[in-house]
């Protein structure tokens, strides 16, 4: 009987929360993590390259302040134990050391992360591959460091799609669909055409891309396998089709079709190419994009007289478009943050300039995040912490990015104009 009573008491405790101390944390630091990165040991040329890639990857996230290389101290070890006191005096939170082993046609990066406050190693890891994957391996290492310190999955090893336009001496344009690492390096040409290419979009598995090409004279959506280069038009219809967006399960494409006299949103089932019309409105409806769980789509519509963002709930039988942007007279090209808590979009401010803005679902105001003049087509990184978008500088289009944690960066300029970036999903 007594035993039963004890049991009942134990069962009641968690339900009532009885006796549980409840503490409130109200203050936190907004400073970035201070990290000292010792140049990795190994072949000096390889090591330098790896160090530069990692340093840039980490700085771009906005979460770290990396100690200048000139200020680094020699790493002292006593009995295989790091001497932490020097680094504590420098005010560091973390120390990263590593070694690159390049032999027998394989390349290994071994790295260690030390927590200066806890005075111990918090990660010891190894990435390996072949020597010509050196950039990839460096990005993997960056992601390992980022994850280990912030607890968030890193995006250094993800990739970007964008469109490159180069004019020759007779001012005739050549358009290229490009694939590159998240830092803009390691560019590859997926398609080259004399006619415009627009709106590239990633399949969720990162193996295929969809885009709009004008090669037949009108806008047509193509799907192309990255590895093989094999491509096909998704619909043989003789109508303009644009702005493809892949559903998160990879089974559907949302598209804009002009077959009804004006632009309407359709969903295409890839298995049998069945089309389902989603909007029916005299105004233009376009730029659809899927929610991370695939149950909603966002699109831009002019039905209120100015471009605004609308949301369709696909779980409903005859979904009604719900307007979700209200500030100003131009809001367009929206995409969801990874957990659907908000949207990133292009917003025209009162000064008439176009900026990238963020609106959280539960807030009734928007946050303008960029300050150039003609910011356009934002694409959100899969961890939701970074956005890449197009800017215009000295009459030239190029790519820039920012992290929600505050870092801003420009991608190294390719020749000519670069625009319409699309950020891939996680690729590992």
């Amino acid at each position, binding site marked *: 009987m007594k035993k039963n009573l004890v049991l009942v008491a134990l069962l009641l405790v968690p339900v009532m929360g009885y006796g549980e101390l409840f*503490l409130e944390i*109200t203050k*936190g*630091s907004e400073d970035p993590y201070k990290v000292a990165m010792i140049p990795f040991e190994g072949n000096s040329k390889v090591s330098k390259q790896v160090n530069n890639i990692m340093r840039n990857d980490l700085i771009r996230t906005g979460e770290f302040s990396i100690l200048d290389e000139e200020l680094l101290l020699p790493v002292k070890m006593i009995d295989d134990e790091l001497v932490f006191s020097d680094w504590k005096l420098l005010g560091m939170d973390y120390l990263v050391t590593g070694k690159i082993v390049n032999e027998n046609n394989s390349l290994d990066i071994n790295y260690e992360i030390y927590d200066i406050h806890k005075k111990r190693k918090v990660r010891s890891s190894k990435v390996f591959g072949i020597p010509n994957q050196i950039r990839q391996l460096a990005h993997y290492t960056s992601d390992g460091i980022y994850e280990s310190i912030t607890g*968030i999955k890193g995006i250094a090893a993800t990739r970007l799609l964008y469109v490159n336009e180069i004019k020759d001496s007779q001012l005739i344009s050549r358009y290229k669909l490009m694939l590159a690492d998240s830092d803009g390096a390691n560019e590859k040409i997926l398609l080259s055409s004399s006619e415009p290419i627009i709106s590239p979009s990633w399949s969720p598995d990162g193996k295929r891309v969809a885009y709009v090409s004008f090669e037949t004279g009108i806008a047509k959506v193509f799907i192309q396998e990255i590895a093989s280069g094999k491509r096909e038009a998704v619909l043989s219809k003789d109508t303009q089709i644009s702005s493809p967006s892949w559903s998160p399960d990879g089974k559907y494409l949302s598209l804009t079709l002009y077959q009804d006299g004006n632009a309407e949103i359709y969903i295409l089932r890839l298995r049998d190419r069945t089309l389902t019309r989603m909007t029916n409105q005299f105004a233009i409806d376009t730029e659809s994009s899927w929610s991370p769980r695939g149950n909603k789509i966002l699109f831009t519509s002019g039905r209120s007289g100015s471009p605004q963002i609308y949301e369709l709930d696909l779980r409903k039988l005859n979904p009604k478009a719900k307007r979700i942007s209200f500030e100003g007279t131009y809001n367009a090209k929206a995409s969801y943050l990874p957990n659907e808590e908000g949207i990133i979009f292009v917003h025209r401010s009162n000064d008439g300039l176009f900026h990238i803005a963020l609106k959280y679902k*539960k*807030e009734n105001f928007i946050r303008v995040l960029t300050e150039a003049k003609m910011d356009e087509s934002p694409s959100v990184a899969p961890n939701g*912490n970074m956005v890449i978008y197009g800017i215009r500088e000295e009459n030239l289009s190029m790519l820039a990015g920012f992290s929600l*944690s505050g870092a801003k960066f420009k991608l190294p300029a390719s020749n000519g104009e670069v625009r319409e970036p699309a950020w891939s999903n996680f690729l590992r």
Partner: protein
Amino acid sequence: MIANHRYLQASLFSFCIHAALFLYIYGTFDSNTSQKLLISQPLQIELRFDLPSPDIKKQTPTAPKAIAAPVEKTSQNIVYSKATDVIQTKQNNALIESSIANLLSEESEIEADRENQEISMYAQKIITTIENAWMKPKNIPKDLVANLRLKIRSSGRIAGAELIKSSGNIRFDNSALQAVRRVETFSFFNSIPKNLYDREFQIIAISFNPS
């Protein structure tokens, strides 16, 4: 009627025995102590609670000692807090319940006060430790609150952290979990008395609420 007569006899006999016993216990037959029924000398009292703790033992002798100081002969009384406060005295059977009760209540008040103070001191230490480890993300929605439940070993090591209320923002939730991960161990836990740890600090809930 015969039966009733016997009962009366038996009850009379029983009454006599009980009366004698009562008088004996009361001290009527004891010529030495019968005149000293009032408490003529201070008593040193040791309070022993059902869950003896080192702290209580340390504290209790101080107060009564002050009263006892001028008297040579002091007696040690042991009081049990449970059920019917049983009083044992070596020298006499003086009835001192009222004074014991006073002392007891006073003692438990002091004890409770001291304990609350101790709890809030350790709670503050926990808060400061976590606040120092927490990197609050930027550009997050207003009014986010994330609640965690921590399971903490008596060594201070955080054995488990569970998100019991998500803020809805991945980065915010993550920063809270990461702060706890960065703390890993509360170094001051070994100074928390065992009973206090058992009662208050094994499982705690913390709320990250910057607004």
